[in-house]
């Protein structure tokens, strides 16, 4: 005889199981409409693969899993998909969730190739293949949480599982779904247990059953007679069916706080899941129905039904003789951990083990809560050895740190504390709310940490860009200064109009006095024109390229091109002026042979362009110097006006700072030029 252990706390509520075990399992029938939620399990909802109007067969996949922790959804009967939309689902919040709605045709026609993957000799299939088939059959824990079975069975490599436990405890009052399953379908469960044993390869396999189910115990004992599976009977107590509690009862081991059963070498599975795994592997049928207890004083014939997943609860209740007038509320699950369903139209899902329709006398509305009297009954009842009374104070004060220190997350939400509380305080609801709040805070903190990192990375990037720009600016300034120094040491090489004017005056004087050879000066100016033109060409090419690529520094490039164009114009003017000045000196001195300097240099395209420009300015050149200066001034003023307009426009439009800067500097330059031109004009007029 195996040693049985005990766990701390626990309660003995009235069992109320006898009502629903008087009758055998009955098939609930095919309802006219099935509403199949896409998320009946923990994890990501499945993704629909059928369309509205499509005909589906019983057992056909209608939604595929998305992600690792997810399972597919199958049609429970044949018919036509009439809608894929949000419908009310059995959830405490009363929210809707995406569902596939099927209008059944009553033929209940299986998919033609449904039994093809049936493999009674599963020993020959390797483990990953079996797990994949279990997942493909849509099996998620049928005890209540709905955790995908394949994920639970995929034990981490290197972890040796000593014990496989099949949970036939069913400790919650009223529920008898597993009880009748064990009574009537013991062979199916044992078949499933053998598959599980093959997958996990444990040293021992235990079937834990409470002693309040003698018929089920007898049936299971008979079924395991010539196998090495062990049926273990233990005293009834709520909540023995909790995974951690059952492990302690059967093995004496405690699962560490925050750990999984596999950490102590144990895997637990529900009896219903074992039967479903048998169907999936040996018969090749997916999970499309389950055993659901319909009980409570408000139904005339409480019993267990085999129900198609997606059957509306209203339809199922009718089968059991539901008396709506007597019922105070409809509960999915048991009286301890179940919840009131928002509407009778919600469907039966994979985790619906019981529909409880009690009368007011049977399960009265909880009276209002009163003050905690610190009696300590909750601490005595807690199966997780927590201090519910302390946690209640902390939850009220939202002292989440202290709640965590008091191991709030070890609470299995069994409701034993609320059950024994003489002040009727809904303790479990405080713990549920606090858990959710703590998880939300953790998520928020993670997100804020993430945002902080991104913000800091951005700041750093902006600073780096600014620094680089500053360095470049400094380098440019240095280069310009060096150039200026060079130019001042090597004589004047300025292309500035002012300098050019001074130059011109100087040259004029020099020519007048000596008629010296000034072709080198002319060459320099021509070179300046050619090089500026080249720069303009490259700048234009760059701008075109940037425009093609849609780069965001187009504005800056455009400003650069404008600047170069201005420079080119200045250089051309300088050259023009110089040549004019020379021509006039030549004319005066009759020295001749100075004018056709351009003929000496190679007849390049740039040269030709200069020639053109020269020709165009010939007429202008004929004007007296005052006239020319005046025309120049006018032109400059026009450009200033247009530049100013441009600047104002971009300021209004809120352009990038660098664009505005560039425009501002160009306005400044033009103002200077105008001042110089005015000065020149004045000089000329006074001269």
């Amino acid at each position: 005889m195996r040693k049985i252990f005990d766990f701390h706390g626990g309660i003995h509520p009235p069992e109320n199981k006898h009502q629903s075990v008087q009758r055998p399992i009955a098939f609930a029938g095919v309802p006219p409409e099935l509403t199949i939620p896409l998320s009946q399990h923990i994890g990501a909802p499945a993704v629909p693969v059928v369309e509205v109007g499509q005909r589906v067969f019983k057992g056909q996949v209608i939604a595929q899993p998305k992600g690792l922790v997810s399972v597919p959804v199958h049609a429970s009967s044949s018919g036509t998909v009439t809608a894929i939309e949000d419908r009310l689902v059995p959830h405490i919040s009363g929210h809707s969730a995406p569902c596939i709605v099927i209008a059944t045709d009553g033929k209940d026609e299986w998919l033609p190739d449904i039994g093809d993957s049936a493999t009674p000799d599963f020993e020959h299939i390797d483990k990953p293949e079996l797990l994949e088939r279990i997942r493909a059959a849509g099996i998620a824990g049928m005890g209540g949480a709905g955790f995908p079975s394949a994920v639970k069975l995929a034990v981490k490599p290197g972890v040796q599982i000593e014990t496989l436990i099949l949970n036939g405890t069913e400790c919650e009052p009223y529920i008898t779904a597993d009880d009748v399953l064990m009574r009537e379908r013991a062979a199916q469960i044992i078949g499933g247990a053998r598959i599980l044993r093959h997958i996990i390869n444990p040293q021992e396999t235990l079937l834990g059953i409470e002693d309040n189910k003698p018929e089920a115990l007898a049936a299971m004992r008979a079924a395991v007679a010539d196998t090495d599976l062990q049926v273990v009977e233990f005293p009834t107590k709520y909540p023995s069916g909790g995974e951690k509690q059952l492990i302690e009862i059967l093995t004496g081991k405690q699962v560490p706080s925050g750990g999984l059963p596999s950490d102590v070498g144990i895997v637990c599975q529900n009896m219903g899941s074992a039967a479903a795994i048998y169907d999936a592997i040996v018969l090749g049928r997916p999970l499309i129905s389950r055993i659901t207890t319909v009980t409570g004083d408000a139904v005339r014939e409480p019993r267990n039904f085999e129900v198609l997943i997606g059957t509306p609860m209203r339809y199922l209740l009718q089968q059991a003789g539901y008396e709506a007038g007597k019922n105070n509320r409809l509960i999915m699950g048991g009286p301890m951990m179940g919840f009131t369903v928002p509407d009778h139209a919600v469907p039966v899902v994979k985790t619906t083990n019981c529909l409880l329709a009690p009368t007011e006398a049977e399960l009265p509305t909880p009276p209002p809560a009163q003050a905690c009297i610190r009696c300590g009954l909750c601490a005595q009842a807690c199966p997780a050895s927590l201090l519910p009374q302390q946690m209640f104070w902390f939850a009220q004060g939202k002292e989440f740190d202290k709640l965590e220190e008091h191991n709030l997350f070890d609470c299995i939400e069994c409701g034993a504390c609320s059950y024994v509380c003489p002040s009727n305080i809904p303790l479990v609801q405080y713990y549920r709310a606090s858990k959710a709040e703590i998880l939300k805070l953790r998520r928020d903190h993670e997100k804020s940490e993430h945002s902080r990192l991104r913000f800091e990375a951005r700041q750093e990037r902006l600073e780096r860009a600014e620094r680089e720009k500053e360095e470049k600016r400094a380098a440019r300034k240095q280069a310009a200064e060096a150039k200026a120094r060079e130019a001042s040491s090597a004589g004047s090489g300025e292309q500035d109009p002012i300098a050019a004017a001074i130059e011109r005056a100087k040259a004029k004087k020099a020519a007048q006095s000596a008629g010296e050879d000034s072709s080198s000066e002319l060459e320099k100016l021509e070179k300046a024109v050619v090089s500026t033109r080249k720069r303009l060409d490259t700048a234009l090419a760059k701008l075109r390229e940037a425009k093609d690529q849609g780069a965001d520094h187009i504005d800056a490039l455009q400003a650069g091109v404008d600047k170069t164009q201005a420079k080119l114009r200045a250089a051309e003017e300088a050259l023009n002026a110089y040549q004019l000045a020379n021509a006039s000196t030549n004319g005066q001195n009759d020295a001749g042979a100075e004018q056709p300097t351009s003929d000496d240099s190679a007849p390049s395209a740039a040269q030709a362009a200069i020639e053109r420009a020269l020709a165009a300015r010939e007429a202008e050149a004929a004007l007296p110097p005052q006239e020319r200066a005046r025309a120049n001034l006018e032109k400059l003023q026009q450009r200033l006006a247009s530049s100013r307009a441009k600047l104002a426009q971009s300021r209004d439009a809120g352009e990038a700072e660098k664009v505005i800067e560039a425009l501002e500097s160009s306005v400044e330059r033009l103002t200077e030029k105008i001042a110089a031109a005015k000065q020149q004009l004045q000089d000329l007029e006074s001269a």
Partner: protein
Amino acid sequence: MALVGLAAVFGALLGFAAIRFKTEGNPIVDQINEILPQTQCGQCGYPGCKPYAEAIAGGDRINKCPPGGEAGIQALADLLDLEVIPLDDEHGEEDPRPAVAFIREDECIGCTKCIQACPVDAILGAAKQMHTVIASECTGCDLCVEPCPVDCIDMIREEESLQNWHWALPNPVSRQVEIIATDAAQATSGQDRAA
């Protein structure tokens, strides 16, 4: 003599420790910054959460952060041992539902202004190309809404759904009514008299 010797030894030890274990930056600023919600929204009047954390460390009031809300003020008060003060309305109101910016993409002209405004680089796009918000990176700070020249950015508040639903604490008020029938009767008759 012995005392002088001890003083010298401990002095040297402390001096060494001060150099060896020197703390970079101001640790209290980091602790405050940890509590701030990092939305970088600037509603506090500072250009980001870190500058506000520095300002708090320098003595600024702790009630200028609407995204952090009452819980944030509480945490800051605990950390700095200050009085809990209500949120300053001047800087905005607390909205417990997180928001995410959404660009109506047909209307976007690709001006990049929102990209430049986003403090956490959560907007994707290039000049003259449509922009979009990476929802998972968005802090809901609102800063991209104002610069948009065509007003194509909405702030979408998260609605309660099956995914984010969670249990609420039982209503404490409901625990105080109708404790026993006679109390309830007294309470109502008292109300009647008052009326």
